[in-house]
């Protein structure tokens, strides 16, 4: 990605400003996201053998669909998620309510918890109670580690890392602190 495109992604996340790179990678609904994920397989096959190919696709699917599952009624502007698909990384982002706001409705942090985003990736707690849900991010974390990938997720000023640290890479790409409640997830391999 070029520096200009990265700036446009940052601007979109913080302000909702659209541009060509945003329009061409924006999924207005989950069917569009799932279709792009299906077509991403041809690129992913260059990096992964069968087992990890399907585990990675499945994990990206969980993270992308979370954008739609947890933000209905809470979009800041146009509903949907940004899905950047590159050879060695993917970026999934939404301008929704954020993990903290979603989880805080049903879960109170204990002294052992570092943050809501950490809870989301490590505990079976759902932001959609009373439905019995909330295993998608734990599943993604397990697969990311199994396949030797790295993940960095930022939401509402909170962050979580899985695998090798991507924080400095993320910050060099998109800046030190993004100002928005929405969620951005970077997965690298």
């Amino acid at each position, binding site marked *: 990605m070029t520096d200009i495109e990265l700036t446009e992604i940052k601007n979109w996340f913080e302000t909702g400003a659209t541009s060509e790179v945003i329009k061409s990678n924006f999924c207005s609904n989950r069917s569009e996201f*799932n279709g792009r994920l299906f077509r991403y397989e041809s690129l992913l096959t260059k990096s992964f053998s069968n087992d990890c190919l399907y585990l990675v696709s499945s994990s990206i699917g969980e993270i992308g669909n979370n954008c739609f599952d947890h933000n209905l009624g809470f979009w800041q502007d146009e509903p949907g998620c940004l899905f950047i698909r590159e050879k060695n990384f993917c970026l999934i982002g939404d301008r929704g309510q954020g993990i903290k706001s979603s989880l805080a409705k049903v879960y109170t942090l204990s002294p052992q918890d570092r943050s809501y985003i950490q809870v989301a990736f490590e505990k079976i707690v759902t932001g959609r109670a009373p439905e019995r849900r909330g295993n998608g991010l734990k599943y993604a974390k397990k697969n990311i580690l199994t396949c030797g990938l790295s993940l960095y997720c930022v939401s509402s000023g909170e962050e979580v890392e899985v695998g090798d640290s991507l924080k400095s890479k993320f910050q060099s790409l998109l800046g030190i602190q993004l100002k928005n409640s929405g969620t951005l997830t970077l997965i690298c391999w």
Partner: protein
Amino acid sequence: MKIEIKKFGTYLISRPEGRDAALVIRNQILTPANARSVELDFNEVKVLTPSWLDEVLQEIFKTIPPTDVQFLNTSNASVKASLEMVLSIK
């Protein structure tokens, strides 16, 4: 009763799609006569998520005890991992 999951697609990702599949299974495939046990056949499924699977199993387990549900052809890594995740929290 055997249900071929590939007939719902080979990329089974979202909860709403899983919910739709669950309703079809409940209303059109499982009948009082055949709903005593079920085999879920994952042959040719490429990508499965816990979200899709959870919706389907929640519906099936309402009428068929988990001990009477069998899972066939689960060698695909995402099928295996999703089953482990969903069944571990049931």
